Each structure stands twice: as structure tokens, then as C-alpha cells.
């Protein structure tokens, strides 16, 4: 039992090691890299991807997938901006409405997947098209957010030593992360998710509320995507229907690099944090390494994906089943 536990944790340990090596190498090679400011920026700049990835982790743990998150993020940004700019909603109300819409959108996808036994890949693919299209229905152009409340929120944060501020978006990310850890490991919901990912039919036979949990999962993912969108608007102070193109795949990549198996049942929310941090470190690389442009970023992320997935494959040979 103990051995299995360790085996399952090995991807997480490898991920941690890769992050430390990557971060260590950067710190050695570039002065000023190893600083509170860089770490803070890592959290702040990737808060939206991180928040989405936490929600996605649960979906992937259950053996499903959610391709709609990037589009839901885009929809939320333009939705919030329009509610405030055009209809003069108070920001807090606009955010609450947007979060509700995102959650309901996710729940709707979950209901279709569960009720009619449709493949999550296709349903969320449709969700991705739908949310992206609706974002353009609301407005086809970028829309600035000009409101004192928003500016004030953007400047909130935890003051850290060295005149560094752990910004509001980073704080939201950390809260979501902690909530994710709590849900995954300390609640019945989390146990149900792992059980469904391990074997849905076994979970059903054990009497677990499979249907309810699956709808909740996608609702959670929709909520996280909407929250990611809200965080994005705080950072950008604007909404744009073009935001988050391809972000679903970045988030999936972060989850997979974090050691979660796409076949479900195996993985940790903590791994997703590491995945997001590795992803973020690669994204900051061009600031330090001249010539390491966006093409090399993608090649690096693709290469890491390859290494991790093959590693996981060898670790989880036993639970493999041809799909």
C-alpha cells in the first residue's frame, strides 16, 4: 500500500524537482532572478491560468476534460466590462453575476455530459465555441474598465518586505489553491472525484453520488474559469473577446506537467501549482534570455510535456487500459 502511495506521488516529486532545477538554474545564471519580486510576479502574472488549472484538475482527476475554460474566461472578461461600462452595474454585482453565469454554464455542460452520457471532449468543445461566439455577440472589440473600485482592487495586496506587494490577483490564486487542496483531500466531494476517476462504474456500485458529483465538477470548472476571467479583468483593466485563445491547452499542459494523469484518478492539486509555476517560469524566460522567444517557449513546454507524460506512462503501466 505504502509503495503504491509512493509510486503515485513520484510524478509530483519529479515535478517539484524539475521546478527547483529550473528555478535554481535561472537563479544561478541571472542575477536579480532569485528575488521576492520575481516569485511574486510568477504568482500574479499566472493567477488566471492557475485558477483555471485548479478547477481543471478536478475535472481531469475525474477522467473528464473541459475545453471550454479559455472561452469562458474570454466571455467573462467582456461580460463584466460590458455590464459595468454599458449598463452601469456596480463592479461587485457585475462580478457576482459573471461568476454565477460561469458556474451555470459549467453545470449545464456537466448536466449534458451526465444526463445523456455524451463525451466530455465534444460537449466542452461545443461549450468552447459557444462561449467564444457569445463573447463576440456581447462586443467584438476590447472594452476598457474605468471604475474607482476596480482600480482600488488592483492596488490591493499583501505588503511583503523589500517594498514588494503580493498583489490581489496572486492572493485570489492562493485562496483558490487552498480551497482546492481542502476540497480534494478533506471533503467527500474530493473523495468522490478520485473514486470516479479511478473507476466510474465502481464508484456507482459503491453508491457514491456519481451524477451529482460530475455536474458539480463541471460547475466548479466553470466557476474557476469565470473567476480566472474576473482576475484577468483586474489585471488588464479591460475585457476582450479575444482573451484566452488556446488557454485551455496551456491549463491542461500545466495540470499534466503537475503530475495529474489525463486518464483520471491520479494526481494532486499541489502538483498543479508546480505545473503552473514551471509554465510561468518558462514564460518569463525571454525577459532574461535573449533569443529565447515564444517559439522556444512552446518547444520547451512541449518537450516537458513529452518527458512527463512518458514518465507517467511508465509509472502507471499497471493501471493502463487501451482507450
Amino acid at each position, binding site marked *: 500500500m505504502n509503495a503504491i502511495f509512493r509510486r503515485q506521488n513520484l510524478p509530483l516529486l519529479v515535478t517539484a524537482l524539475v521546478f527547483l532545477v529550473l528555478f535554481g538554474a535561472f537563479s544561478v545564471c541571472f542575477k536579480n532572478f532569485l528575488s521576492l519580486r520575481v516569485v511574486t510576479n510568477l504568482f500574479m502574472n499566472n493567477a488566471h491560468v492557475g485558477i483555471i488549472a485548479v478547477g481543471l484538475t478536478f475535472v481531469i482527476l475525474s477522467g473528464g*476534460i473541459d475545453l471550454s475554460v479559455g472561452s469562458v474566461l474570454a466571455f467573462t472578461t467582456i461580460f463584466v466590462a460590458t455590464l459595468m461600462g454599458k449598463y452601469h452595474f456596480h463592479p461587485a454585482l457585475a462580478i457576482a453575476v459573471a461568476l454565477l453565469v460561469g458556474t451555470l454554464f459549467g453545470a449545464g455542460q456537466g448536466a*449534458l455530459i451526465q*444526463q*445523456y*452520457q*455524451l*463525451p466530455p*471532449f*465534444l*460537449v466542452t*468543445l*461545443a*461549450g*468552447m*465555441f*459557444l462561449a*467564444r*461566439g*457569445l463573447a*463576440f*455577440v456581447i462586443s*467584438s472589440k476590447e472594452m476598457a474598465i474605468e471604475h474607482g473600485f476596480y482600480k482600488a482592487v488592483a492596488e490591493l495586496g499583501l505588503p511583503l518586505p523589500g517594498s514588494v506587494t503580493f498583489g490581489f490577483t496572486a492572493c485570489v490564486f492562493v485562496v483558490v489553491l487552498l480551497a482546492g487542496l481542502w476540497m480534494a483531500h478533506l471533503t467527500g466531494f474530493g473523495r468522490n472525484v478520485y473514486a470516479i476517476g479511478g473507476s466510474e462504474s465502481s464508484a456507482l456500485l459503491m453508491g457514491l453520488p456519481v451524477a451529482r458529483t460530475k455536474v458539480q465538477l463541471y460547475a466548479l470548472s466553470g466557476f474557476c474559469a469565470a473567476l480566472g476571467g474576473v482576475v484577468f479583468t483586474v489585471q488588464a483593466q479591460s475585457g476582450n*473577446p479575444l482573451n484566452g*485563445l*488556446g488557454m485551455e*491547452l496551456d491549463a*491542461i*499542459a500545466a495540470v*499534466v506537467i503537475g503530475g495529474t494523469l*489525463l*486518464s483520471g484518478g491520479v494526481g494532486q492539486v499541489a502538483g498543479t501549482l508546480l505545473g503552473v509555476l514551471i509554465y510561468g517560469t518558462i514564460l518569463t524566460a525571454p525577459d532574461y534570455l535573449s533569443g529565447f*522567444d*515564444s*517559439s*522556444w*517557449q*512552446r*518547444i*520547451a*513546454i*512541449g*518537450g516537458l*510535456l*513529452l518527458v512527463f*507524460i*512518458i514518465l507517467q*506512462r511508465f509509472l502507471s503501466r499497471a493501471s*493502463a487500459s*487501451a*482507450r
Partner: protein
Amino acid sequence: MTKGDSHPTQGGFAALPSFANRHAALQRLLWPLAGLGLLLLFNLLFDRAFFEITMRDGNLYGPIMTVLRLAVKVMLLATGMTLVIACGGVDLSVGSVMAVAGALVAHLAAQGTWPFAALLGVAVLVALVIGAFNGTLVAFFGLQPIVATLIMMVLGRGVALSITGGLPISVADPGLLFLGRGFVAGIPVPILLVLVVVTLTAVACRKTALGLFIEAVGDNEVASRLSGVNARGIKLLVYMFCAVCAALAALVAIGDVGRVEPDRLGQMLELDAITAVVVGGTVLTGGRFSLLGSVIGALLIQTLTVTLIRQGMPSDVAPVPKALVIIVVCLLQSPKLRAQLAALRPGARRAAA
């Protein structure tokens, strides 16, 4: 190993009991055809200009030709994707394969010393290598197809960007431009290319045992292997073929536009291709496939988009009807919904739990 044993006439529909009859193949083709017919009828009633085909310099133009031309890329991709999906897989990397092949060909063409045949050869060769990479990961490492091809999707885009240094390149090679914009006997070359590719693929699948083997692998890989089908070889083959289709789509695309933008070429087209295949009646879990269905699926989506745009829908909103088509098709294929509808009819409202 006999053909009769592994033929999925029975087993193929085990997952869809309500389809278990001989009309199944026809029925599946019926839905996309009906959809397409409905759209054409709508245009016949409300937008006669849709059917106008004009001759200019002996070449055919008009809204229908536009629909066909716009659908060419997706039709080519969907041809390869159909076989991959029939094998129980999926290929997310076709958009990136397009970018790699397109960027490389444009880069070489810009040097001016490469003849068109050599460019064509390079594109196919690159596609074969990438396809073999995908296929190896799926068939020999046993990775889930989504994961395996996600790697190449991310990696390929980076490679394409690094080939051109992230910058767009314009294409002036007459051969490529002919492939994208040319006409033969008044018909645009890309449309002829699709005809040739689909016909050759269909012949290869239906006049040889290849199609049978692909369906057998997608149906039940273990059973197919036990009955002597080289399941791994078949999988490797379909991923390589799918990548070659993507390379052809790339050549058409860069010839048509006259330039390559490595960060945009083929982006999101993998999802359009998957949509076309699913709309065409090939089920995502593998088994029975219909090349003709995929072509009709691609045409259906393109016709829908063009029709709506002609009716005044902004082109940005085009994903919405696409989403609705996917959901409707999924629901139509759902055995549960069929059961529910059947249960509603006689008034007995005992939906299966």
C-alpha cells in the same frame, strides 16, 4: 483470421444498440445530408443569389464555390481525422502540422532554388515524420491519443515559429499559388485536390481490407490483434496519413493566401476537423466510419456559417452555430435521449435511470 470474424457489423454497434440494424450506415449519413438539404432549401427560399454561379475567364465563381473553397482545408483535415477517429484515436496536432509544413515550405520556397515537386516532397516528408512520432506515442508507448497529440500540438507550433523566426513569410512560388488559387477546366484546383484525396482514400479503404482493419482496431483493439490484424501498424499508418492530409491542407492554405503566418496557420482547425467528422456520423469512440459523411459534415458547417453570414450574422459569432450543431448531433447519437423520446411517445414516462 477471416474477414467475417473481425467485421464489425455486429460488434460495432454494441455500444449503440438502437443502431443495430443494416440501415445504420445510411441513417447516419441521413442526418448530415438532411441538415445540408435544409440549409440549401432555406437559401433557395430566402436567398436565391446563393446559387448564382458565374463564369469569369472560363472559371467558376459564386457563393457555392466560396463555400467549397472555404471548406477545402477542413475537408482535407477531416479525411485524415476520420481514419484516426475510426481507430479510436484523435489528432489534436493537425493545426500545428499545417503550421510546420507551411512554414518550412514557405521558407524553402523563399530561397528560390527549390522546384515545386521538391517542396511538395518536403511537406509530405515532414508530415510523415510528425505523423510517425504521434503514431509511435499512441501505438507503441500506449499514450492516450489526446495527450500524445497535444504534445505535438504545442511543440509543432513552436517549431513552426522558430523556422520563420516568428515572422510571416510571403509565398511567390507559382506551383504553390496554382495549388491554392488555380483553376483546371474552370474548377478551382483545391476542390479537385479534395476530390482526388477523398476518392483515393475511399478506394484504399473500401476496395482493400484496410478500412476493415481500421474499423476492427477502433472497435476492439485486443480482438483485432488476436485475429491477426497488425493493430499497432494500422494506428501508426493512420496518424501518418492524417499528418500528410494536414500538410496538403497547409499547401492549399498558403497558396491561397500567398503568405504564411506561423502563429495563425491552422490554429483551431483541428477542432473544426473533429467537428466535421463527428457531424458526419463517425462516433468518437471509434469503429465504423464514413469518409463521405465527414466531407458532408465539413460542407454542412461551412454552408451554415456562410448562410448565416449572408443573413447578416457577424463573422465573429460563427462559433455559436457550430456549437449548436455539435450539441444537436451529440444528442441525436445519444442512446439515452432516443430511449427517452421513445418512452415519451406512448405516454409511459418511466425514463431509464
